[in-house]
């Protein structure tokens, strides 16, 4: 099954292994990102091709190139005087003895001996490393040029915060949708998705404009769609479960400080917010907006030592918030409570933003809700620790445009920065979707367990994503050569080694069937079988 490629000629653990290709193997058939196995004397190694180059034994040959129209010359030179070289980054090893076979692949700590044979990894090899599809593992895509299923260990995946990156149009949304379905099926976690572009709840559109089903259509009983924009949702024919309204009283000074950049507020204006909150209590926003330019109010501001121009600046910003249609003076129902009650039942919540795709609304709402939910989770987890009770269901919060929340300036203030840093202490983790990973605080990036990245072409973005990954330079070469669509590099906590996958298909009736929750069906089938047995 496995195809012999060549043999190891030199290498180091750090710089990778050089493999000289056999004459019969064409360099043109090789591709970066492919897997190879190296048969060492005592153990097998798994590695990934990170570069392919051409070599000659005699530099003169390049100075006076031979006449390759002569078939004999061409055949003789291939693999002898001229040859292909593979640069392989080793990742895993399996020892030859029974014990290590049981242990499975281990991270590589040495290199194979000289002239070890190198084969193209077979389907079995890949399965051995990544494991087949099972209760915990979710089929996410195929490796390049192979039909093997690459599976992610999702319970392991949700133990950390994770990121999906890639420039726009590379299939981030599709990938996220697939991953969310996986989380729905195979992990004990529930999802809260802040769906900025209304793509995950009911239906989304493919790049070609074709509508595709989203979570609620596939798993009607396990997904609830919340909306901020009822009218828009209704127009799109979405069956919503709850309309989210936010009362002025729910806005905290922290929310405003997060919006400093988007609302164009000055530093003192943000400071003033805290003072206003102290002064007016819960109704501070309304009071602040209502404050007219009277002598009385001037007195008041003076008392709080807020400069007039600062206050005007603040008022303008607050007015922007107030204009958001989902803001009401007092909310009829508590959105946080509603979301939590759904999450507690194991129902995933998608919050659609409808027409309010404006970043102010997104940051405000996502932050506001997440903070409250997180504090609830925190309380419950702590209580469960104290009383030895079951902790709350793990929660994965999905946010888009993450660099707006997690940029170095505000990451420390937002709840998302906190969640990303404290990892899963309180059973809450993040799924970050972003196209400008360089805009995300490096500290947050470094805490991400598994990173899934589609094509990125900005040098800084690439560096940001790969920061801290072992074999960074190797991955860089691979990442830069991903195809613009349907291909992603996955590496980190949930996988034993980095891999490039062609993401599984989404959007066809067959794919929906594959994804669909067939547990019910199975149950019915069993019931039927039992009945037939008694007949």
């Amino acid at each position, binding site marked *: 099954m496995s195809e012999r490629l060549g043999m190891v000629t030199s290498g180091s653990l750090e710089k990778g292994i050089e493999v000289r290709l056999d*004459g019969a193997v064409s360099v043109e058939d090789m591709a970066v990102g492919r897997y190879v196995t190296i048969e060492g004397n005592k153990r097998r190694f798994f590695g990934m091709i990170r570069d392919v180059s051409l070599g000659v*034994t*005699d530099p*003169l*040959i390049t100075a*006076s190139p*031979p006449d390759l129209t*002569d078939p*004999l*010359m061409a*055949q*003789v*030179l291939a*693999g*002898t*005087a001229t040859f292909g070289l593979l640069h392989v980054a080793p990742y895993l090893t399996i020892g030859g003895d029974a014990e290590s076979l049981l242990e499975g692949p281990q991270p590589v700590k040495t290199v194979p001996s000289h002239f070890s044979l190198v084969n193209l990894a077979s389907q079995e090899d890949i399965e051995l490393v990544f494991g087949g599809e099972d209760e915990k593992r979710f089929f996410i895509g195929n490796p390049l040029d192979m039909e093997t299923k690459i599976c992610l260990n999702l319970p392991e995946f949700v133990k950390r915060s994770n990121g999906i990156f890639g420039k726009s149009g590379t299939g981030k949304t599709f990938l996220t949708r697939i991953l969310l379905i996986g989380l729905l099926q195979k992990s004990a976690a529930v999802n809260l998705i802040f769906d900025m572009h209304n793509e995950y709840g009911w239906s989304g559109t493919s790049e070609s404009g074709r509508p595709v089903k989203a979570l609620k259509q596939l798993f009607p009983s396990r997904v609830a769609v919340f909306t901020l924009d009822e009218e828009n949702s209704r127009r799109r024919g979405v069956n919503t479960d709850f309309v989210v309204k936010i009362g002025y009283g729910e806005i905290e000074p922290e929310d405003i400080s997060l919006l400093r950049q988007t609302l164009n507020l000055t530093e003192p204006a943000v400071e003033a917010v805290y003072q206003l909150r102290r002064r007016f209590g819960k109704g501070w926003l309304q009071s602040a907006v209502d404050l007219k330019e009277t002598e009385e109010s001037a007195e008041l501001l003076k008392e709080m030592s807020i400069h007039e121009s600062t206050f005007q600046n603040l008022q303008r910003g607050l007015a922007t918030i107030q204009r958001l249609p989902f803001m009401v003076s007092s909310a009829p129902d508590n959105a946080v409570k509603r979301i939590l009650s759904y999450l507690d039942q194991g129902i995933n919540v998608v919050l659609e933003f409808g027409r309010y795709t404006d970043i102010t609304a997104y940051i405000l709402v996502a932050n506001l809700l997440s903070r409250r939910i997180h504090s609830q989770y925190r309380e419950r987890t702590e209580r469960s620790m104290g009383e030895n009770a079951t902790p709350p269901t793990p929660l994965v919060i999905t946010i888009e445009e993450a660099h707006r929340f997690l940029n170095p300036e505000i990451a420390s203030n937002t709840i998302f920065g906190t969640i990303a840093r404290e990892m899963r202490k309180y059973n809450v983790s993040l799924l970050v979707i972003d196209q400008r990973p360089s805009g995300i605080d490096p500290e947050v990036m470094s805490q991400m367990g598994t990173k899934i990245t589609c094509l990125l072409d900005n040098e800084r973005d690439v560096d940001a994503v790969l920061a801290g990954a072992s074999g960074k330079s190797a991955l860089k070469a691979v990442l830069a050569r991903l195809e613009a669509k349907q291909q992603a590099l996955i590496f980190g906590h949930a996988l034993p080694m980095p891999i490039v996958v062609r993401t599984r298909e989404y959007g066809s009736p067959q794919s929906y069937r594959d994804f669909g929750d067939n547990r019910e069906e199975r149950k019915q089938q069993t019931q039927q079988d039992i009945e037939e047995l008694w007949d």
Partner: protein
Amino acid sequence: MIEAGTTGFTAQCYELYALPPLGSLVKTGHIYGIVCLATTSSLEPGRKPIARGKDEASEEDIYRSSPQLSKLLKSEFQSLIVGYREDGRLCHYLPPEPARIHSFVYACPAEEMREFSRSLDFLNLLLNTPVPVPAEELVSACLRRMSRAQEDPDAFLVAAGKELAARLSGEFQLLKSILGRLK
């Protein structure tokens, strides 16, 4: 056999001009050689042949009118030792002792040539022993002859070429000229 050494031997032909071709495989006793140089000259070193046949119509006529010529001239060839047979096994390296004077030298039949060329290790001796002809000429002549004895001459040439490429890794020009002469 009129002269024998560790690396080669010289033999004289019974018939004038009955020389084996350059690069052909010959054997004497259990020793194998590759013909690397052939000469035809006067029997006595002091007596040089003179130009004849001014009035003759053809070359044959010269020999017919002067029959003593074939007795006064001799044809000799030098061979490079490329291996020997020991206990039925072919060894592609130098024999422990040289051949003996007056032993007979035979041209090898195609069958034996095929057997001998199953291993290409003899190329090493061919390339590394100083010979009076350019190495590329000798090697290419030898491989050309051997390929003719093979069932698949092209595959043999490619295999031999690869062997050469490995041995001549730093001498691309030499490799190129050998390969150029294999056609």
